[in-house]
């Protein structure tokens, strides 16, 4: 069967089960856009290539399937570098196809030429420059294989225009032949037994659950492990929803803005079982002072994570689900003195409960702001945490919550209750402002059955808001709650705490731009909320709209800080709790 390279590419994507791609055409990728017309694949035309990448990430995080983006060469390609880096940090499976100038022009500084495989080598699991149209089926099959297996991640296929135009014959890709790539398979039984020994002998165990548990679809196995051992769980920023917040054994999120109990439980644990988590600096604080008394079991599908930050006592290199299931099987097989005995940890659980009661997540009641005072209109200042709580209570339990990066992100993860895997979509490792709007679009495309809300900051929103035009045009009814505090709030918080309140370049203004007018201009419904009693009616109104995107401009208290906080580089023991809790015995 004869076909063009471009047709071969689209056919290969169809064979991989791709149902949607996010993209934006241009010169070098033009040949690929012709067969898209005849393809079963839905193409969503974004307004900026960064939006294509983040939308593909949102799609992947919400569904577990790889997200796909197609962009042109040069600036189109460089505009997806941020999403690739973001996906690399957060282990999100992504396949990005970039156009490239013709093979004969490569290296000549041709129009819209960049060395995108060189640029992205450090932020992809692997990338390919296709130099022969006959290779296309094989390269696409390899790309999806690498993106989705082992520790998932982004890959890039660079596709010269003349290869796309070349005539080739179709042949089915054979079995994957990558001699240098083979993700670990089953866990080592000896390591699993050693892990079981440690966990069952522990008096103060904590399961430190990371994003790897979600990637491995290991939530059910984790629930079994908790049922069996009674061990308490902390879920990192990348793992929120991997274990339900509503379960009493879930302590919530550890780390820089984690709650007191989660942070301190990890800190005081005697056995810390890291499941698909990577001892990120936002979790450990000062590494030397992190969980000093804990023996560590580290389960990770990526061998290079083992010992990168903390040397484990037991290492299990395997997919989290396989490892946890093996651990459950071993523990079930134990009897007598070797068996799991939740009574052993009863005093620990009692202590954790005491902390939880003494140090819940709290925020001040709305304070009165005089008319014309600060950036607000006067009256009671709207607390951002209150908005999140109202949103949480007014939306379905399985709502997908998306966020950008900053204070609003931390309040969202703190005050939401995540009870299902893949209901939390955010930018963790890279901390990419502007992630929320395009990622919400991708999440909604992947999960049209779910309500998708994005909680965004005003600074973040301004970075990628143009994708709401995409959402309106494509009838993707996402809902955006801007916590508009008129500041780059997290930077402002650091300047407040560590730079003697010398605020440098963080003020944004609450009404420039006018978010409601901007939303309306992009085809969305725009609403504004300035007082607490307006919050719920506005959310209810937004929830009732299903034919277009909705943006709510919540004018929130500029002065609010995120508590608790472990200052950067400090020990987790030095966690700064909310001012109202600071005198309490620890």
């Amino acid at each position, binding site marked *: 069967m004869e076909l063009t390279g471009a047709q071969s590419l689209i056919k290969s994507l169809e064979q991989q089960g791709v149902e949607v791609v996010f993209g934006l055409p241009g010169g070098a990728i033009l040949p690929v856009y012709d067969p898209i017309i005849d393809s079963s694949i839905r193409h969503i035309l974004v307004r900026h290539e960064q939006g294509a990448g983040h939308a593909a990430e949102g799609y992947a995080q919400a569904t577990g399937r790889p997200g796909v983006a197609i962009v042109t060469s040069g600036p189109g390609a460089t505009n997806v570098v941020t999403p690739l880096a973001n996906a690399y940090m957060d282990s999100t499976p992504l396949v990005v196809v970039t156009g490239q100038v013709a093979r004969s022009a490569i290296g000549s500084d041709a129009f819209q030429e960049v060395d995108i*495989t*060189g640029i992205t*080598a*450090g932020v992809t*699991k*692997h990338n390919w*420059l296709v130099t022969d149209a006959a290779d296309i089926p094989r390269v696409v099959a390899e790309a999806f294989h*690498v993106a989705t297996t082992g520790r998932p991640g982004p890959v890039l296929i660079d596709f010269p225009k003349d290869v796309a135009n070349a005539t080739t014959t179709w042949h089915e890709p054979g079995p994957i032949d*990558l*001699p*240098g*790539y*083979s*993700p*670990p*398979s089953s866990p*080592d039984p000896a390591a699993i037994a050693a892990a079981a020994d440690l966990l069952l002998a522990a008096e103060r165990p904590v399961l430190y659950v990371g994003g790897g548990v979600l990637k491995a679809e290991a939530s059910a196995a984790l629930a079994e492990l908790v049922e069996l051992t009674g061990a308490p769980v902390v879920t990192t920023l990348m793992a929120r929803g991997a274990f339900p917040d509503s379960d009493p054994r879930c302590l919530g999120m550890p780390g820089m803005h984690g709650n007191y109990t989660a942070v301190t439980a990890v800190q005081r644990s005697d056995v810390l079982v890291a499941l698909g988590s990577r001892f990120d600096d936002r979790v450990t604080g000062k590494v030397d002072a992190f969980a000093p008394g804990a023996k560590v079991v580290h389960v990770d599908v*990526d*061998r*290079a994570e*083992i*010992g*990168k930050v903390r040397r484990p006592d037991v290492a299990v*290199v395997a997919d989290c689900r396989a490892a946890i299931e093996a651990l459950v099987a071993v523990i079930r097989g134990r009897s007598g003195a070797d068996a799991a005995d939740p009574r052993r940890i009863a005093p620990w659980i009692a202590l954790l409960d005491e902390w939880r009661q003494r140090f819940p997540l709290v925020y001040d009641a709305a304070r009165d702001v005089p008319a014309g005072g600060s950036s607000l209109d006067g009256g009671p200042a709207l607390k951002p945490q209150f908005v999140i709580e109202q949103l949480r209570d007014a939306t379905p339990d399985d709502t997908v919550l998306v966020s950008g990066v900053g204070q609003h992100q931390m309040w969202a993860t703190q005050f939401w209750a995540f009870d299902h895997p893949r209901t939390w979509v955010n930018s963790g490792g890279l901390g990419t402002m502007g992630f929320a709007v395009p990622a919400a679009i991708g999440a909604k495309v992947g999960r049209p059955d779910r309500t998708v809300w994005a909680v965004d900051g005003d600074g973040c929103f301004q970075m990628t808001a143009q994708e709401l035009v995409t959402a309106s045009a494509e009838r993707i009814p996402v809902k955006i709650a801007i916590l508009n505090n008129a500041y780059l709030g997290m930077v402002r918080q650091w300047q407040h705490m560590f730079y003697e309140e010398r605020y440098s370049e963080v003020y944004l203004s609450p009404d420039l731009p006018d978010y409601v007018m901007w939303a309306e201009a992009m085809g969305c419904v725009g609403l504004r909320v300035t007082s607490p009693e307006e919050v719920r009616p506005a959310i209810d109104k937004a929830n009732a709209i299903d034919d277009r995107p909705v943006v709510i401009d919540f004018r929130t208290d500029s002065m609010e800080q995120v508590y608790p906080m472990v200052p950067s580089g400090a020990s987790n023991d030095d966690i700064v709790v909310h001012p109202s809790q600071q005198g309490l015995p620890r």
Partner: protein
Amino acid sequence: MSVQGTSAGPGRVVPMPGSGSGSGSDARGGRRLRHHVVTLLVENKAGVLVRVAGLFARRGFNIFSLAVAPTHDPRFSRISIVVDVESAPLQQVVDQLDKLVNVVEIGELHPLAAREAELLLLTVSADAVSRSQVIQLAEVFGAKVVDVGADALTLRFASAPEALDDFEEVMRPYGIRELQRTGRIALPKLGREA
């Protein structure tokens, strides 16, 4: 990746035969060795060297020296990298390299368990007075004269890297004009047990 020695599971990096502990310290001689030799079997594909070198740069690992050449199998090349083990734990270097899709096999060699070799070309001043001394010294080391100029000689010397260091030191007083060394290559020492 496939593996040196087939008993370990997939992805397992096994030290090459005779590999040392990886501590970088020399228990027998007491002299502290800061380097290890990591040898990579890589697919002969465009950009592989950039991927390997880029990984070192990105992760803050230091390269002492680097040698690349095709193997007897044209599908693969061998990259020998001398790694500064004080810049990063060796295991982390190896594990990160292992993640590169084009890296098929990794071996690491403790210098005490390896036969190492390096090649040097050196142009040294040698006038009528000093020429015979330089040639004599070259002979002592087993170096070869490969070019003769009016007031200089170019010498070629291949040996263990430490011998090259010594040779350089001996030649320095005569006035080294130009010097080039290749990267270090290494193979594991052979066992003598039957």
